[in-house]
């Protein structure tokens, strides 16, 4: 029997503040307007993306290609609704774009595309690509003596992909302490529990043994995320892995830890009512 991390227990019980609820309203409004979307994977990710974009990344929404900017890649591209909410809220593009999600003329697809969405660094959606691209960005910074940092957000199901571990070895080989991998460890992938589909534990030990400095926390704890993310690299000379224990569908009781909410095609009236109760009118 795998021991449940105290961070995982905290993730289940912690409450969300108004900004986190507001961001969820943006996500769910997009789902409502499109009639589809990866709900669970976005809701587990929101605090990680929020803290990155609110407090950590050195970015300028008015100059999204600033060479000095920090780079962030959403490697689990299916969590894009969370990213879109943050980018819109931070002014990379108008909030009204969120209503066009997945529409024929929208810049916002079901997976984020570079060149289409201001602030998106790489097109993702096929899993297991982002960390390697991040290694390239981080290595380029090293070679060019630039100070930007690279953050890559990975899903737990995503790290089934062998290419992630190839990238991890590469990052460690080069001692890329300007590279941070954040793992959205919600423990539920498309089919069901990660523990059933392809067990990941001992996850922290895996990253440690691949040469990363590892931190674990409750991925919905905004304060903990700020503290840890502001202290990267955790160990000089090593890439950092932050295992964020989260809850898939966090903030929406019907969706929490429910694989049926991995992707939703339609929200019923009763589901919409439940969402209003959970996150407020939207």
């Amino acid at each position: 029997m795998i021991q449940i991390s105290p961070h995982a227990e905290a993730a289940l019980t912690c409450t969300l503040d108004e900004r986190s609820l507001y961001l969820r309203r943006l996500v769910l409004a997009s789902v409502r307007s499109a009639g589809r979307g990866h709900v669970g994977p976005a809701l587990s990710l929101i605090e990680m993306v929020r803290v990155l974009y609110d407090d950590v990344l050195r970015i300028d929404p008015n100059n999204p290609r600033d060479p000095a900017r920090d780079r962030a890649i959403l490697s689990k591209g299916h969590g894009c609704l969370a990213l879109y909410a943050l980018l819109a809220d931070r002014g990379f593009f108008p909030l009204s774009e969120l209503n066009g999600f997945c529409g024929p003329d929208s810049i916002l697809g079901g997976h984020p595309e570079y060149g289409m969405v201001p602030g998106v660094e790489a097109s993702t959606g096929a899993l297991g690509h982002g960390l390697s691209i991040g290694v390239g960005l981080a290595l380029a910074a090293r070679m060019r003596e630039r100070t930007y940092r690279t953050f890559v957000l990975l899903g737990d199901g995503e790290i089934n992909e062998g290419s992630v571990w190839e990238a991890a070895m590469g990052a460690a080989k080069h001692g890329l302490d300007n590279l941070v991998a954040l793992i959205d460890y919600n423990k539920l992938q498309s089919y069901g529990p990660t523990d059933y589909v392809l067990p990941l534990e001992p996850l922290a030990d895996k990253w440690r043994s691949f040469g990363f400095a590892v931190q674990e926390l409750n991925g919905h704890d905004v304060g903990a995320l700020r503290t840890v993310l502001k202290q990267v690299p955790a160990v000089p000379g090593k890439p950092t892995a932050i295992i964020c224990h989260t809850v898939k569908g966090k903030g929406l009781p019907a969706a929490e830890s429910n694989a049926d909410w991995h992707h939703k095609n339609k929200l019923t009236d009763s589901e919409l009512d439940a969402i209003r109760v959970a996150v407020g009118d939207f």
Partner: protein
Amino acid sequence: MRNTAMNMVHKLATRDERVLYIGSDPGAGTLRAMSKEFPKRHLIEGISEAHIIGMSAGLAMEGFVPYVNTIATFLTRRCYEQVAVDLCLHNLPVRLIANGGGLVYAPLGPTHQAIEDIAIMRALPNMTVVCPCDADEAARLMEQTLDWTGPIYIRLGKGGDAIVSKAEHGFEIGKAILMRPPGDVVMVTTGIMLQRALAAADLLAAQGIRAGILHMHTVKPLDTATLLQAIRGTRLVATLEEHVPSGGLGSAVAEALIDKLGSGLPSMLRLSLPDRFMHNYGSQDSLLKKHGLSASAIATSIERALAASHPSSPQLHST
């Protein structure tokens, strides 16, 4: 050809600080001189092709021009999604230098024989596919790779292939080279099939058959304009390739002719490897011979095709 292409990477690195060499686990001493002169730009990243392609994409996003090098099958089959998404979708200037295109690794069996690489690389939007015929042409190609937009797949031959390309023909990516003037037949070649086509043309000439040769070193983008010009008035278009029949040069030429000529299509003969994995070893030469791609077999196939083609076949025209 391989040594020349490798040495060109070093030469380009001397001129341009954007140039990187990225190998997976190449042979000992590969680009040793470059590794000493530019240790930070000579990267050996392990047998992890999927990762290497993604990493190269990241480096290219930051302005580098990575030259990624390993065996052709591993650079195409193993990491196809990374090539498609990380390189082609982002349209990044990464150069894939594929050792052992075609049957170069004949003795090593089907895992090492790149017989469908042109097809799968050509299918990707934004990808450029180039198959030089000899070391001199490889050098001329490499000179042009610094500033070409988007990814390039470079299919290298064995090395030691007879030098048949000529400096006076110049070299432009995407611009076919007319090696012999059009006659009764025009052979369209890519890679090291040019040498065989030249020998076949001599054999045909002895039979009184005039054979033109158009060297289509760049399979994508295909030089359709030069192709249409070269086949005007000829009785037969014969494509020659060290590749399965699906999706390679023969397919590209047929598609271009259908698109441009519509109903007035020429007689065509597509000479290629069969649609199956090779279960014989031996050498590149012996396998090509076994599958009808020796110079004499090519000449015989063309003779037969010309004899079979109806004398009142529609005269070819260019649109």
